[in-house]
């Protein structure tokens, strides 16, 4: 029997890793992968609480999160490809069009 604190701590560690990746890296694709890590940390917390509460709603929510993540990846990677066509780069520091 796995205590609830284990997957929650693991989820926290994974989420922190994703945040550090988003803040530290400049490559847009790696930032995107870090966002995926954070989404999976949320999924892990959902599954852990579904196990704890003996309810299936958390697992259904994880299913929906996976669907939205798939849609997000498709649109986001299309945007990244367009960015690359525009500037020949995927580094987010190259995209400062909003700077005055």
């Amino acid at each position, binding site marked *: 029997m796995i205590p609830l604190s284990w997957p929650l*701590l*693991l989820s926290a560690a994974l989420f922190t890793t994703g945040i550090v990746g988003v*803040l530290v890296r400049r490559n847009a694709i790696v930032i995107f992968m870090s966002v995926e890590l954070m989404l*999976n940390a949320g999924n892990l917390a959902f599954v852990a609480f579904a196990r704890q509460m*003996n309810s299936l709603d958390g*697992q259904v929510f994880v299913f929906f999160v996976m669907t939205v*993540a798939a849609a997000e990846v498709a649109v986001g990677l299309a945007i990244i*490809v367009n960015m690359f066509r525009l500037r020949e780069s995927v580094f987010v520091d190259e995209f400062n069009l909003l700077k005055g």
Partner: protein
Amino acid sequence: MIAQAIFAAFAGVLVVSGLLVVLHKNPVTSALFLIAAFCSLAGIYLTLHAEFLGLVQVIVYAGAIMVLFVFVIMYLNLKNDVESGVQTAVRRGMGWILGGVLVAEAVLFVSRRWSIGPPAPPEALGAAGNTQAVGQVLYSRFLFPFEITSMVLLVAMVGAIMISKPRRGDTAGTPTQVPHRANVTPTPAELATAPHGGVAGSPPPPHAVEGRPRELYIPEFDPPDERSPNAEGSR
């Protein structure tokens, strides 16, 4: 006890590969470590008695989404993540500081006693199996959100195609289309208005091909078919 050991092993793989996703310089290696992280997370789902989600995790994340990632990385032909400059260093430092604050918060959180809530019943959900139980919930209480997800996927598909489509007048990335005229029989109007007084079968004069790609003017026309007036008159 065995479940705890399996969980700990998968958790170790997950944390290490997640850190390597963030820290490795090469995006392709990052993607491969992300695949490892997703597979170990699927194992963790299995130990948490979410078998359906574990398999969906492997199929959707490690199968579909990561294929998309690796495809885009290869398509863009990315070099290593060369980072330099004072501004980048400042921002990286801020990122590490924020990450350290989060880790300290987690350590503080763990060091205290925190309520875990009611313990789960020892019996897993139903004897029918996880997939059947999830399917029953998904198609009864969550039927409307389930249908909405199909719309989300459809909109995302159309949006991705529309975004990545090259715009009109934007020829970057697409090869310029050379009209392939070799097998097209010229119409009589085209033959009459041809600049070299165009008889079918005669090659164009050399000055006509000045500065043009040679394959535009392959002087081998097909013989006139039945629709052209010459063939009708000779019959």
